[in-house]
């Protein structure tokens, strides 16, 4: 009889068996005590009243709001770009535009000098958005399922897109669109990649310093250096627009993106759980 008491207490024993148990219970005190213990499992006293029908309404209201995860996949990058646009400091856009505008004005008599301004503006912009120190939303972003690499790529793409568009406009204004592009594209790519790697590994300020120092060295480079240290000539070639430069820039950028998802966003050990 013992094995049916649980179901009997729950009221789920089929009728013929239940009648049998009922008859047995009337003559067996031990089983009656056992039954009482099973009944106690169902909970003390009156069953708790479930919430009223309003809970259905609440669930339906939630059902009306769109499910975030099921939209078309291309919507995520767009939404991410829009969200990042809101939190990238306005200073970055203003400073980039201003620096390029001043650059166009200053070098209008020697358009080839424009190539000295563009890489610096692009690289400084990258340092500004790739470092997490000045990202007001970095903690919230780290708490979302959005991969940190995707966030970094979005921010970098936005700023690079803006700077390249402005630089192209500047080159067009100066009338050097065809030839001028070759002057700054390679150096801008390499310097930006250096800046990205620096910002991800050692921080935005340090990246800015690295950019400034590298670019100063590049500007100060003269034939005098070449004559003294001939082995430096291949390194100098890196600052032109060629396949090696662009490939190297891509490699550095890829390394930076890899590290961005691999390190603590705050660069404080064990500040966030990484998977």
């Amino acid at each position, binding site marked *: 009889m013992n*094995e049916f008491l*649980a*179901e009997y*207490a*729950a*009221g*789920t024993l089929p009728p013929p068996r239940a009648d049998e148990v009922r008859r047995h219970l009337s003559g067996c005190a*031990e089983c009656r*005590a*056992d039954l*009482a*213990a*099973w*009944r*106690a*499992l*169902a*909970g*003390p*006293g009156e*069953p*708790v*009243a*479930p*919430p009223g*029908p309003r*809970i*259905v309404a*609440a*669930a*339906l209201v*939630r*059902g009306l709001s769109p*499910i975030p995860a099921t939209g078309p996949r291309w919507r995520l990058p767009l939404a991410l770009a829009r969200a990042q646009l809101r939190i990238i400091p306005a200073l970055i856009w203003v400073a980039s535009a201003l620096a390029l505008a001043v650059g166009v004005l200053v070098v209008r008599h020697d358009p080839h000098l424009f190539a000295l301004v563009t890489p610096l503006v692009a690289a400084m912009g990258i340092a500004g958005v790739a470092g997490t120190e000045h990202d007001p939303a970095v903690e919230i972003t780290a708490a979302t399922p959005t991969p940190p690499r995707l966030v970094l790529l979005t921010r970098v793409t936005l700023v690079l897109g803006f700077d390249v568009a402005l630089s192209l406009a500047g080159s067009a204004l100066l009338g050097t669109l065809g030839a001028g592009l070759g002057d700054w594209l390679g150096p801008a790519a390499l310097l930006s990649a250096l800046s990205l790697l620096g910002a991800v590994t050692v921080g935005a300020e340090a990246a800015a310093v690295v950019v400034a120092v590298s670019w100063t060295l590049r500007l100060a480079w003269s034939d005098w250096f070449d004559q003294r240290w001939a082995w430096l000539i291949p390194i100098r070639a890196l600052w032109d627009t060629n396949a090696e430069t662009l490939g190297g820039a891509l490699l550095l950028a890829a390394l930076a993106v890899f590290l961005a998802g691999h390190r603590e966003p705050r660069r404080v050990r064990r500040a966030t759980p990484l998977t």
Partner: protein
Amino acid sequence: MEAVTGAAGRSWRWVATGRGSAEPAGEATDAAVLAAIAAGDGGALSELYRRHARALFGYLLRVCGDRMTAEEILQDTLLAVWRGADTFEARSSVRTWLFAVARRQAYQRLRLQPAPVPVEPAEVADAAPGPDELAVLASGGTAVAGAIARLAAHHRDVIGLAMVAGLPLAEVAEIIGVPVGTVKSRLFHGRAALARMLAEEGRRA
């Protein structure tokens, strides 16, 4: 019982039940109500809730221990039913499906909380509770409620489904995905653990 085809998907209200169904005559079967939910009828969701609210809520309350969390999981469950009604394939009864949905929602939410429970604690060594221990348990009261909240999750799970929601053991087994024998042994071990816990508290007091 016909599939729901009426205007605005509301015909479940007037569909007569087939023979041998659990619902009173004149009411649609659970399956018809679920079909109406799949067709986008919010009233049908209210109807399904009305039919199973007490059992569902009792189960969730037993599994998670406090009313607030149970209500949240209940709402999650209703939302999951609303969104997933069209995935019901009638391989089980609607009630089984409903409780399986609720159970999944409960585990999804509670998994975020600490205190992982060992999958199957060493239950082999458990001695059956003695009559004294069972007597303490049978007296019921708030002490029992407090002790139930401290039971292992897989014990509260079967107790909630079988004893509170009042589901047949075969259905409990189907919902959890274990043999009926396992459900029975978990019930017995759950009760034994509870009786021991209460007896120990009684000795300490």
